[in-house]
């Protein structure tokens, strides 16, 4: 198990390095002079040169990458070109908002999606199963920014129940929670459908296995067979799906944060890209990739923990 974990973490670090190399290559390959784009056509050559030096773009690309990682190891992710604030501070300020948004959405999706999938299996072939199936496909098909805009119109503009923008008053839990409802729902809705369908599909397969017949032959109640005997196995593909899907949850956070003008990583990175603020883009991408890679590793370790057969494969 330890060797497995070390191997996975090593692979994760390699992915981080490769992503950053790709990022720098992209900056290098994108046509146009970033300083001209950022400063506008009327900027003086001195000003442009100054900006290029500050972003480190006058150095060879490989040197930029080496410098970036050397600094990153000491916790220094560079400085915002415009405000001169450390990128690490900017990311740390924005990150909690996005994480709260993403995790709330995911938790809600799991808490609703998994029981719906189980219910579908217990009532398979009935109207309830059919309704859950149709609704699942329906919500998967609706993009999260569409949900965001329509819920904004309904609950914020027409009904005025929920705040339209922002993340709520600092320190006021109720106001923060109210500001979280719509963005989280916008992201969670599609995932409820995904998870319900995934749980249903993998559980239907598990329910046909002989050990389920054994559990039935001992007269165990159906809810216990579904929730303990089948779910422990059926949840495994769902965990992989959710871990991979976290990337798309974080990217839909970019849209949703834009719609609700909610401070967060999504807003930070869109603003930085628009102003060619490369140090901020690089630092944010590094942190987001690191989070994504750690979640994937955590999911793999969780699967190994849930399935003793996987555990044994990696023990030897």
């Amino acid at each position, binding site marked *: 198990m330890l060797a497995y974990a070390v191997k996975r973490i090593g692979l994760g670090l390699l992915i981080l390095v490769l992503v950053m190399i790709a990022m720098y290559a992209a900056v290098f390959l994108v046509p146009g002079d970033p300083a001209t784009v950022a400063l506008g056509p009327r900027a003086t050559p001195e000003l442009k040169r100054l900006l290029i030096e500050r972003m480190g773009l006058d150095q060879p690309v490989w040197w930029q990458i080496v410098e970036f990682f050397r600094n990153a190891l000491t916790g220094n992710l560079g400085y915002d070109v415009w405000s001169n604030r450390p990128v690490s501070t900017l990311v740390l300020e924005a990150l909690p908002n996005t994480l709260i948004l993403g995790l709330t959405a995911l938790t809600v999706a799991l808490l609703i999606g998994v029981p719906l999938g189980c219910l579908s299996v217990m009532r398979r072939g009935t109207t309830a199963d059919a309704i859950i199936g149709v609704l699942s496909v329906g919500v998967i098909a609706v993009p999260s920014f569409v949900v965001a805009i329509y819920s904004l119109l309904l609950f914020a503009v027409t009904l005025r129940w929920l705040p339209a923008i922002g993340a709520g008053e600092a320190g006021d839990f109720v106001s923060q929670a109210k500001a979280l409802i719509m963005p989280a729902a916008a992201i969670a809705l599609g995932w409820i459908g995904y998870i319900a369908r995934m749980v249903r599909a993998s559980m239907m397969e598990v329910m046909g*296995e*002989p*050990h389920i*017949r*054994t*559990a*039935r*032959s*001992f*007269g*165990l*109640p159906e809810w*216990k067979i579904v929730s*303990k*005997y089948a779910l*422990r*196995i059926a949840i495994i593909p769902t965990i992989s799906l959710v871990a991979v899907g976290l990337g798309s949850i974080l990217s839909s956070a970019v849209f949703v944060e834009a719609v609700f003008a909610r401070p967060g990583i999504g807003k930070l990175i869109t603003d930085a890209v628009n102003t060619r603020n490369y140090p901020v883009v690089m630092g944010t991408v590094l942190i987001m990739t690191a989070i994504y890679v750690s979640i994937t590793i955590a999911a793999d370790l969780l699967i190994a923990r*849930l*399935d*003793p*057969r996987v555990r*044994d494969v990696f023990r030897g």
Partner: protein
Amino acid sequence: MTGSLSAIDLSVRYETPHGAVHALRHVDIEAHPGEVIGIVGESGCGKSTLVTALANLLPANARIDGSISYNGVDLAKLDAHHQRLLRGDEIALVSQDPMTAFNPVLTIGDQLVDFQHHRKDLGRAQKRARIAAMLGRVGIADAERRMNSYPHELSGGMRQRVAIAASLLTDPGLLIADEPTTALDVTMEAQIIHLLRELRRDYNGIIIVVSHHLGVIAELCDRVYVMYAGEVVEGGEVDAIFHDARHPYTQALLACDPARFHERLDRLPTIPGSLPNLTQPPMGCVYAPRCDRAFAPCGSVAPPLVKLSASHVARCHAVTP
């Protein structure tokens, strides 16, 4: 609690998109406490359907006619809830393949604790103590450690012992072993048969053993039912069936058992032909197309059940008492 079991005129058909499959037709069997009943026949003859019906585990597309009476209760007419209450309490099933019979992600001990869920009077610790004792009884050394093992950490023979221990833990009045040795190698098979023989000495319920292996049936059972194409074609005491078989199918089946050959043969004997299509069962005798003694009525008239002695019956036109 122990009681007698009888199936009277029991038929089971599976509704499929290609029409109904008549898997079991007009089966009569009976069993009394303390008896070991064998059910034998080739693959697809309805053995598993019969015991699955007895254990109330038929799939949703199965339709039952006739009655299954256990201890005076008609199991075929019970609702799903009451059927479930009998399973794992009065009726226990040892399943066919020990390799896949247990949940792969839960420990043996965890599953065997759950299987005793009808025993509301016992706490978790008491249930675990019963498991340890029962695992010892079926010949598993180091029972405490084995309870914390996952199924894939045990060998096939050991898993079959655990499966038998699991079914005995529920103190069933009716224990059904569906092909208990089919998935095992010969050494393991001999050990499991030995174990079942030992267990039956201090067990006073009914044991039903299903097998296509004549040797297993001869070793274990008091009485045998021979099945062919969804019907019981012959039934009687083990001695009567093995030494005085009257139905042509039973005779042919015995003639094909390699264990009974005295000399080495170049070719193993087989019964020519194959099983009839059970979506359209024949009008007459089910075995007639393969029978070397078939005559005029066999193709069109269903043969009666001929009573040969107090317990020996055969369903054949060519047999006379």
